[in-house]
């Protein structure tokens, strides 16, 4: 019994760690898509953030400066995205795709010319990374059955970005549904004309959304390179931007469900690692690839079985043109 509990908390712990970059990227996408900008460039922004964070941290030795650099890089990418899709009314998807290519090329290229390690940044250690934080009383409470165990293993012992990600969810919900900015943000994604006739600048609003997107996804990138891992690695975002996008649609562009979906992805992955190579009763040994594909297959099934049609913000993907 006790050991099952330990197992479960450990799996959940792993779930949390795997979910954090997804949560951040997903929330990031939520802001931009709610504002009517489809962001397939999340992947690239994530990668750029990861690279900038690791580089800055490697050079300055400060994880916090690394984090800022990660955000900065994502901001630059969002800037390009905005310029292309808001000012020049270009196709949002294609600028997103361009960003993904740009990040893949530029990060390795710059990394190589700066660090001469084929695009890798130096191994980071100590203050160059965000290390786990032990919450108060975690050690003392550890002996308390069940709750203490959960507190120690699951709640305590994560890095600061993890806590940030989890706080960002309710904050996003609050911003979206309880503030003036949120109201306008949702409106501009649904009917930019309504915003425009109300005398509010669509362009400004969309840029604001993109800035928030950049901050979140930049932090997500930093998580990958200076919290979860200890250094940047070519293409280390490994499709997480796309998965985050899928999670966003799955969650129907709502923050709470987005958290749950990201946790589900994390959980399935965490479980998947643990059941590889296990011999199952009745079925026997399952090819490891089948187990690895399980999270995706399950998602498809869930999607088809339980989730109805996802209705995107109406104006999403359409540049706003005002005749003058």
């Amino acid at each position, binding site marked *: 019994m006790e050991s099952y509990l330990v*197992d479960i908390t*450990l*799996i959940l*712990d*792993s779930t949390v*760690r*795997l979910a954090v*970059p997804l949560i951040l990227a997903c929330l990031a996408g939520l802001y931009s898509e709610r504002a009517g900008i489809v962001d397939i460039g999340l992947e690239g922004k994530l990668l750029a953030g990861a690279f900038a964070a690791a580089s800055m941290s490697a050079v300055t030795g400060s994880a916090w400066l690394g984090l800022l650099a990660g955000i900065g890089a994502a901001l630059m990418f969002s800037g390009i995205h905005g310029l292309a899709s808001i000012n020049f009314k270009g196709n949002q998807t294609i600028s997103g795709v361009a960003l993904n290519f740009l990040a893949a090329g530029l990060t*390795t290229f710059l990394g190589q010319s700066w660090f001469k*390690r*084929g*695009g*890798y940044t130096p*191994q980071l250690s100590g203050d160059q990374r965000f290390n786990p934080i032990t919450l108060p009383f975690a050690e003392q409470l550890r002996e308390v059955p069940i709750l203490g165990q959960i507190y120690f293993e699951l709640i305590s012992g994560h890095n600061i970005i993890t806590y940030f990600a989890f706080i960002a969810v309710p904050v996003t919900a609050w911003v979206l549904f309880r503030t003036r900015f949120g109201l306008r943000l949702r409106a501009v994604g649904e009917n930019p004309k309504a915003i425009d006739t109300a005398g509010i600048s669509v362009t400004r609003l969309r840029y604001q959304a993109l800035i928030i997107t950049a901050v979140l996804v930049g932090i997500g990138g930093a998580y*990958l390179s200076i919290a*979860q*891992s*200890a*250094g940047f*690695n*070519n*293409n*280390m975002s*490994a*499709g997480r931007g796309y998965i985050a996008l899928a999670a966003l649609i799955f969650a129907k562009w709502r923050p709470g469900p987005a958290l749950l979906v990201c946790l589900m992805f994390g959980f399935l*992955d*965490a479980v998947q*690692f*643990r059941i*590889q*190579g296990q011999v199952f009763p009745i079925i026997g040994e399952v090819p*490891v*690839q089948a187990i*690895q*594909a399980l999270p995706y297959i399950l998602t498809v099934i869930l999607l088809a079985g339980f989730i109805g049609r996802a209705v995107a913000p109406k104006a999403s993907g359409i540049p706003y043109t005002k005749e003058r």
Partner: protein
Amino acid sequence: YDGGGKFDKSFNEAAYNGAEMFKAEGGAYQDLEISGDAMREQAIRQFASRGNNPIVMPGFSWETALKTVAPEFPDTKFTIIDTVVDLPNVQSVVFKEQEGSYLVGILAAMKSESGKIGVVPAFNFDLLEAFACGYAQGAKSVNPDIEVLETYVGTGFEAFNDPGKATEVAKSQLDQGADVIFQVAGGAGAGVLQAAADAGKFGIGVDSNQNHLHPGSVLTSMVKRVDVATYNAMKGVEDGTWAPGVIVLGLAEDGVGAAFDDNNASLITDDMKAAVEKASADIISGAVTVHDFRTDKACPSL
């Protein structure tokens, strides 16, 4: 270079180091990282037609391309690492990874207190299985009851580039009680070593000597002397000693082995060292044969 990139801190980087070694001695070379399989043929051909000699290709993925191109350039000397191409102008260098892995397996088993150790290959793939299988055999030779966990990072070559997931995979093994983990995942392996170090447990490096990455936490590294092979090929052509055919580098040839240096000196007891030396001698003498996964796609110990 193979997929994974030049500076993966293990396989390709070793080849690069070998070439650099050659360059340091006054040689010159040209190199290229490829970006897709379709490029391989083209790359070899371009090098050959520019008169580069020899052409060293680290990685079995070059096999097909080489088979096509080598006959077109009978005067060029090709060296391919990790697989065999039977052509008159090709030198094939293969390693007995299982033997080196056997040795680190012994070390892992002796170091382990929990009776559980792990191996993390990038993905399910024969070459990587050979490492894992040798490792398991070595470990079981010390402790027949030891449990060897094997978890893959991903499903394809991109797994070599995902240290984030590798970290998580290693953590999952640590959570399950493993206290020594052998990474066979190229660039992503850094994540494994990191996770082991963070947890105060032990990691084992691969291909290059990775003991320095986390001194005191990397128990040892299963070195595969790709650098030597590369260097030898280049040097060999210069000296005129280069010869076609298959070169198998095992323990006997010093092509594989467990790395001992200052960084892990404190982790290795004399007993452990002795056990490794004995096993090494036994393997070389033939008293012990290490099963190669690739011969029958099966591993009795895993």
